[in-house]
């Protein structure tokens, strides 16, 4: 059976924000460390490293997951999206990001990338997400600044905007 020795680095290939990346990593390297230290995408934050705070949340095959509890070798062949994928252009925010700015959904911004990745997935899967759904998804994220109310407002505004957009396009 394919056995990856502990002493060496091993290749891993996956899609990151739409592009194929290939890296050589030790088995014990976490996805969060690969993204930040090897690939240099520091938008994904690392807080508790216990799966609790949610700062490291990324999307793996479309689903929000904790990068701090995922081995880099476990995303082989997967589609990984980080907060860097949201803005269509460095000068333009995504509608969700813009709503965060308008509604003061962030202060220090430490929790924001993880929260955006959870909400982005939620609004894609459930365009009709209501306050309850949003609160449920936020329960897996800790924010020490905002008190969450402005985040909920931002998410509701983004959901509404997205629904309007869809009706206009229909």
């Amino acid at each position: 059976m394919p056995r990856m020795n502990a002493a060496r680095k091993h290749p891993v290939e996956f899609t990151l924000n739409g592009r194929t990346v290939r890296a050589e990593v030790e088995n014990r390297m976490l996805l969060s460390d690969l993204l930040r230290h090897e690939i240099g995408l520091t938008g994904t934050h690392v807080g508790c490293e216990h799966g609790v705070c949610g700062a490291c949340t990324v999307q793996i095959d479309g689903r929000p997951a904790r990068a701090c509890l995922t081995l880099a070798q476990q995303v082989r062949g997967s589609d990984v999206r980080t907060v860097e994928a949201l803005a269509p252009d460095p000068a333009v925010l995504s509608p969700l990001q813009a709503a965060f700015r308008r509604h003061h959904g962030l202060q220090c911004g430490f929790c924001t990338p993880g929260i955006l990745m959870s909400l982005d997935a939620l609004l894609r899967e459930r365009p009709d997400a209501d306050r309850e759904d949003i609160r449920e998804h936020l329960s897996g994220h800790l924010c020490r600044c905002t008190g969450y109310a402005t985040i909920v407002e931002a998410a509701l505004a983004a959901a509404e905007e997205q629904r309007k957009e869809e009706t206009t396009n229909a």
Partner: protein
Amino acid sequence: MFPFTLEKPRSTEDAIAAAASGARFIAGGTTLIDLMREQVECPDRLIDINSLPFGGIRVEGEDLVIGALARMAEVAADPNVQRLQPLIAESLIEGASPQLRNMASMGGNLLQRVRCPYFRMLDAGCNKRTPGSGCAAIDGLNSGHAILGTSDHCVATHPSDVAVALVALDATMRVKGPQGERSFPVEELFRLPGDTPHLEHTLLPGELIVEIRVPGGPHSRRARYLKVRDRASYEFALVSAAAALSIEDGVIREVRLAVGGVGTRPWRLRDCEAALVGTRPERRAFEEAAQLARQGARPLRHNQFKVELLPRTVVRALALAGEVA
């Protein structure tokens, strides 16, 4: 985290053989990776079982069959689970957070390790982590600890929510090992700590959980999970209760009752069940039966509140189940 060899099995037999010779299975990693980085667990070989064919959920006659690699989120959202065994869906939704439920597997959930803080503090005595080193919780901070099934060697609660529901519902599990296959009640997976708290489960070396089977019955639909905790979501239970009732002509025919947060393993309440059969589903009957729940309770310094909270939680869970139309 210490270095380790990572193996990707070509077959189930491969995986079992590797585990029988000392490798550890990894599924979602939400328990194992966390403990490895804390050096509470230091396996030198991991075997990634995610490519094995044990995902998915199916219905066989009255039984619901859940693959060990099915994710908590997937199981909770499955229409057959919601229709046939809503208690399982509810207990899953009450656990962890959406992001973690996307990762966490059902097999891993049953084998998650305790949340006792001293278990994770390498400089504290903990018989579970380091046999013979003592138990820092007994004279330490123990408000979250167990009142049932404890020993002088360990007082940690089993943290799983869905395990409480599965034990209430008489679920069984199928495992495959070097000696072949066997099935047994989920309840028998969990050991009491006794004087060997480092031994938590009854799997033999190399055994892999393959699937969980939940028999259906008239009680399945009139079933609720109530989790009482320090905040409304994303927290482990102080006390939780899974209650399922079958009522005919205004009389309880069958009851299934199990509790979490209070026992060193998911705790079935057979005496309460027996006391309820034949009674009317009314508050007074619930209250009388619930008193039996705390038989044998041995509270510690900071968790005496659980002795009172336990019967109250049982009463409320029964009342909620009774209200299900």
